[in-house]
């Protein structure tokens, strides 16, 4: 009892001294956690499922079949992490480790300009409500693009070396709060005779990533592919599983599976130490990762209901055009974070 109390008191005294080796009380962890705002995805459903967005200080693996939106997801986060504090964002920078060459800066610039427009819209609406000038706090599209560092790596040795040099990079760029590795698996899926060597390299890499994630409050997003697994004893039948095998499955704290169901994309939270396993729809549209039409409509209806009962925080006139609706949804979404009132 006594020692626990001492730890609590010590924790409070030490205040924000993160990364201290002395251990931390649960209470202290909660206090620290408040400063680690997650990174929103711009899809309310996914954010809700993940407890507000992609968590920082942890590894999150995103897996799925080709074309389902893994890279889009990574790119969207690289933009979203830069949303300024004034708008309820993290106000950080991003490092995109591109191992496959799948990052397209043209697409990235589209995502950036969409977010810039969202923020400008919020700022204008806030001004109408009498909130002082937010418009000057909106970064330009160039600033967003400039806030994403890109590393292109060509083989697994470069990839391992890059992770090794990460701490140095993060000291030089303390603003970076997100590292996306797209993809983890690509260079590890060939040229290995001895699988135990591969497993060892991967678990070591995961460990190093975990360390930097904690030390710098980074969200580390690991994109992974799916691979064919031949089931033993099932007459040679095969199924799709995330690549890199069983031991890699333990590497990430959270695992998100992106999948198709008919014509719609879904995100399934496969693994999380805190949150319930759940599946939600999302879509990839011109402006980026967003809610689906139907879940937007449902959210709008719910918002309408609360507005009618007098508790709505963001009424906003609803336009009939689809893209307008989208902006409104995104605005409500970001506004939510800004108001710190996630009560839904």
């Amino acid at each position, binding site marked *: 009892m006594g020692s626990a109390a001492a730890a609590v008191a010590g924790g409070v005294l030490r205040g924000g001294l993160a990364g201290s080796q002395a251990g931390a009380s649960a209470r202290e962890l909660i206090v620290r956690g408040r400063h680690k705002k997650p990174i929103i995805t711009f899809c309310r459903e996914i954010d809700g499922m993940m407890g507000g967005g992609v968590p920082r200080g942890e590894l999150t693996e995103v897996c799925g079949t080709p074309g389902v939106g893994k890279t889009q997801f990574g790119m969207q986060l690289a933009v979203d992490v830069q949303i300024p504090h004034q708008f309820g964002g993290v106000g950080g920078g991003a490092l995109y480790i591109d191992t496959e060459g799948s990052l*397209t800066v*043209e697409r990235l610039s589209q995502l950036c300009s969409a977010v810039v427009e969202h923020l400008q819209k919020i700022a204008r609406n806030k001004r109408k409500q009498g909130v002082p000038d937010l418009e000057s706090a909106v970064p330009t599209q160039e600033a967003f693009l400039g806030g994403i560092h890109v590393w292109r790596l060509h083989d697994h040795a470069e990839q391992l*070396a890059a992770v090794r*040099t990460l701490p140095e990079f993060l000291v030089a760029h303390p603003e970076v709060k997100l590292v996306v590795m797209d993809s983890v698996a690509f260079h590890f899926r060939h040229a290995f005779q001895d699988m135990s060597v591969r497993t060892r390299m991967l678990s070591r890499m995961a460990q190093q990533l975990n360390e930097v994630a904690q030390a710098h409050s980074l969200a580390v997003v690991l994109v992974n592919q799916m691979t064919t697994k031949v089931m033993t004893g099932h007459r040679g039948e095969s199924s799709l599983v995330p690549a890199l095998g069983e031991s890699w499955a333990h590497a990430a704290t959270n695992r998100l599976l992106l999948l198709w169901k008919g014509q719609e994309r879904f995100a399934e939270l496969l693994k999380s130490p805190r949150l319930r396993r759940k599946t939600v729809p999302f879509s990839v549209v*011109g402006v980026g990762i967003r809610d689906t039409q139907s879940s937007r409509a449902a959210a709008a209806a719910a918002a309408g209901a609360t507005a009618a009962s007098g508790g709505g925080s963001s009424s906003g006139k609803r336009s009939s055009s689809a893209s307008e609706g989208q902006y409104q949804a995104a605005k409500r979404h970001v506004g939510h974070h800004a108001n710190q009132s996630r009560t839904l």
Partner: protein
Amino acid sequence: MAGQQPLRRLGLDDDLVSRLASAGLHTAGDMFSKTELQLVQSLDASREKVVELLDYVSTRIVPEQAKTAGDLLRERREAGASFFVATGIQPLDDALQGGFPTGMITELVGPAGIGKTQTCLQVAAQACLPAKLGGLGEDAGVVYLDTERKFSPDRLVEIASERHPGHYGEFSTEKGSMERLLNQVTVFPVDNSAALVDRLETLQARMIESNVRLIVLDSIAALARRDFAREDTLSRQELLTRQAAVLKSLAYTFSAVVLVTNQVTTSFYPTSGLQGGSRQSIASHTNSSSREGKSAFETETRMVMRRGQRAATFVPRALPYFARASLPHLFGLEV
């Protein structure tokens, strides 16, 4: 690929290099395959020394990259037109924002006889054009990896002079343009996967020598089918992934367009939208029993060609979303 670079080129002193070599460590990749403990033992050095050595090797092999997305976008814009090779089909080029992109792999998928090889030939002719005509320049080279002996020089001449009469045609004012085209394109027959891997790995020197900006691999499916029995999905995927890695690296390093043709093994769902339907049925060179259409090749842009209304549909995974569109009636190719 820096991981394959000999350690002696990383500025380590000779004594250390020979000690590493006698421990069987010749590349950075070799070093990373060992644990720190193994290195401590085989080098007879302290743990601190080993960590220091690993850190040093890491900083040396990580490519220098103080670039942001903004820098990359500026570079591409400055490269201008030669960032894409136009397909010569206007609506398609519009949808692709200029044509097939350099620096990545584009996959052409379709049933036999739909016009994949014809498209390849047309793009080859297009790539050899000067930049002002939508090509990659007259000094650009094309490598054509022909796995099915389908390359026809006569057809290339025909397509070139029909598509670009002003430049390649009989009455062209450009002297020797056709001659130049034929010298720009180098054809390598490839018979099996092993030969392809060998060829790809030796391609680097040629890429520099002849300024190769377009690699055509027609077709990948034939090789995989020839080499492996159906149940051997795993090693097939492994080999394909390896091929893809080398192709992607070449594409990126030399900002080349890589065009790979592939076949479909299952039919398209005629009624469902293409995003859903074709996605599930491009089993291609991978396990055809897999309903998800897993492709080991992980290409950046996939173009699906369909019979019927002569439509080509693009599923550009990495390109802007709005380009992901079905473009009916646009294939003006006379096959």
